[in-house]
């Protein structure tokens, strides 16, 4: 009798606890959504919505219906492998949200079910977003796949499932690698997984859709393999121990992504947590960039080093250069000169937002740096950082005229 009562009390208590952690997750989710909406509303006000977003959506609708009537001519230039490669790149972007907070390591860690429950609900949210985005993208591409590449709806559905399975499996595998390995081993393994994963995705998708397009057994085997791999990797990731601090930091970054981007545009820096890297990859022995030792040179050097050691800034420069090269190549005649001037101006502005943060660093406030010294260093640093990209773009401009 006692045991039965005790068990039923335990079950009720466990159920209550589960529902209370469920409530904690729901509150966190609502707060996050509300914060995101507020951040977004500051960037996209009704003027932007009226003149850019709404016309953009209408144009997209017109183009989409036109694609259903007839595939665009440019699709003939894009082989199906190109489309599959695009889907693979899309599949690389998946973020497991956990909705864990720093205080959880003090308050919730004592409750056995709290963190696993919140983490599981975070996985459900992440899966939902991944599914919606994959289905949305494939729906968008559906006219191209059906009209252009002559796939059946069943094949498009199979491709959707395979893409979704890869969207879960590969990014989670990369995350497991980042958690389990450090330094060059982590980079090498991740690069290996991306290259192998890309080849396997292209091979299996092509095999399933083109080479053996009518073989249901092959299609079924490919689908079951991809889904099983995604399930096993997700299960392994969710059962990993000792990942709480990593997950809290990743969650903090994910939450701050939009806000940090908007703040950075205004020259406000997000407070970062401790860096994982102990030594820089560039100028590992703190080598000087200049022989000058005056205040101005020291500050310029600090700003430039800070910039060139930031992977985010390298990514920005790489993206910007690639897009600008395409834009200059497509611009006819000497209109390119005008486009070049505009691109250099935008590049200057892009670099400026990071450098402004660097010259306004609180570390400098500990010493005596005048406003003029900071401004002078800011302009000289931007000029030096933007010079190589500006030179490449000028070369492209001259070669393509």
């Amino acid at each position, binding site marked *: 009798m006692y045991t039965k009562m005790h068990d039923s009390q335990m079950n009720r208590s466990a159920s209550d606890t589960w529902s209370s952690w469920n409530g904690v997750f729901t509150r966190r989710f609502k707060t996050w959504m509300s914060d995101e909406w507020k951040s977004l509303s500051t960037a996209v006000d009704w003027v932007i919505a009226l003149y850019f977003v709404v016309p953009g959506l209408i144009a997209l609708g017109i183009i989409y219906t036109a694609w259903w009537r007839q595939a665009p001519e440019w699709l003939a230039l894009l082989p199906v492998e190109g489309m599959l490669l695009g889907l693979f790149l899309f599949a690389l972007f998946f973020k497991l949200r956990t909705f864990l907070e720093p205080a959880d390591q003090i308050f919730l860690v004592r409750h056995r079910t709290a963190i696993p429950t919140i983490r599981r609900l975070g996985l459900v949210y992440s899966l939902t977003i991944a599914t919606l985005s994959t289905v949305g993208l494939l729906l968008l591409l559906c006219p191209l796949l059906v009209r252009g590449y002559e796939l059946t709806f069943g094949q498009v559905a199979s491709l959707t499932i395979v893409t979704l399975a890869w969207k879960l499996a590969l990014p989670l595998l990369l995350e497991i690698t980042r958690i389990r390995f450090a330094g060059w081993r982590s980079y090498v393994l991740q690069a290996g997984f991306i290259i192998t994963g890309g080849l396997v995705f292209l091979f299996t998708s092509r095999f399933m859709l083109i080479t053996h397009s009518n073989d249901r057994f092959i299609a079924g085997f490919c689908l079951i393999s991809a889904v099983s791999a995604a399930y096993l990797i997700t299960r392994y990731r969710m059962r990993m121990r000792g990942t709480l601090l990593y997950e809290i930091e990743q969650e903090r970054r994910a939450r701050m992504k939009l806000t940090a981007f908007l703040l950075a545009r205004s020259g406000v820096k997000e407070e*970062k947590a*401790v*860096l*994982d*890297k*102990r*030594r*820089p990859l560039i100028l*590992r*022995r*703190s080598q*000087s960039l200049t022989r000058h*030792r*005056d*205040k101005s*040179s*020291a*500050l310029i050097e*600090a700003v430039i*080093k*800070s910039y060139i*050691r*930031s992977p985010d800034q390298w990514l920005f420069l790489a993206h910007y250069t690639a897009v600008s090269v395409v834009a200059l190549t497509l611009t006819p005649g000497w209109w390119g000169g005008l486009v070049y001037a505009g691109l250099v101006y935008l590049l200057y502005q892009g670099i400026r937002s990071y450098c402004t943060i*660097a010259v306004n*660093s*609180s*570390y*400098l*406030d*500990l*010493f*005596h*740096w005048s406003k003029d010294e900071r401004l002078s260093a800011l302009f000289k640093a931007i000029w030096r950082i933007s010079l190589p990209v500006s030179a490449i773009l000028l070369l492209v401009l001259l070669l393509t005229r």
Partner: protein
Amino acid sequence: MQVLSVDIQHAGYEAAQSVIRDIHFTVRQGELVGIIGPNGAGKSTTIKAVMGLLDHVVGTTDLCGPNHNYAYIPEQPILYDRLTLWEHLRLAAAAHELSDDALHTTAIDLLRRFRLEHVIHHYPTSFSKGMQQKVMLIAGFMAKPDLYIVDEPFIGLDPHAMKDLLDILREELLRGAGVIMSTHMLDTAERICDRYLLIHQGTIAATGTLQDIRMHCSMPEGSLLDCYTTICARSDDVYEDA
């Protein structure tokens, strides 16, 4: 010879709202003045007012040492994400207009004393809180200024580093520098400070040597902690009566 003279009628973050009032004190060469007081008493505001970081100050603060300069060592380490320890020190040296030779001599000596010479090419943002605090101390001590303004220097330091810090402070005092130090570690403050400034509810509740403070609260054998609690309790009573 004085290195700092402070004569503040009132100061605060907004013109209409003063946080501290009637703060008057001096710091002489070779003197360590401890600023003590409960949380929210106005210690950090006093330090900010001394450094000229407040917009609304009625009164004067005068850096009257031979070089008219100071070094500030903050409570929370403030660092660049992507500069190495050596680059932080080089930037500090450039700000103080130190030569390369002076940078190498002073910085290397300090790095050895704080046992950080093996991580000079590492990012300090990857250090522990205590190691980051040591970086702040080294950046401050490199300048050899007339006055040090040190905010809670012992937080996060291991006992070895605390001893190193106290040794360096002693050397700097012997050199002729003045130090004002805000701290909650009253047992350490009792051992090292020459004079105290007990700030409570935005004003000086007691000032002077330990002997003066004991006399002030009629506790001739009392520790600094005893005197501190007594004076704070009395001030609270007066405040409530008023």
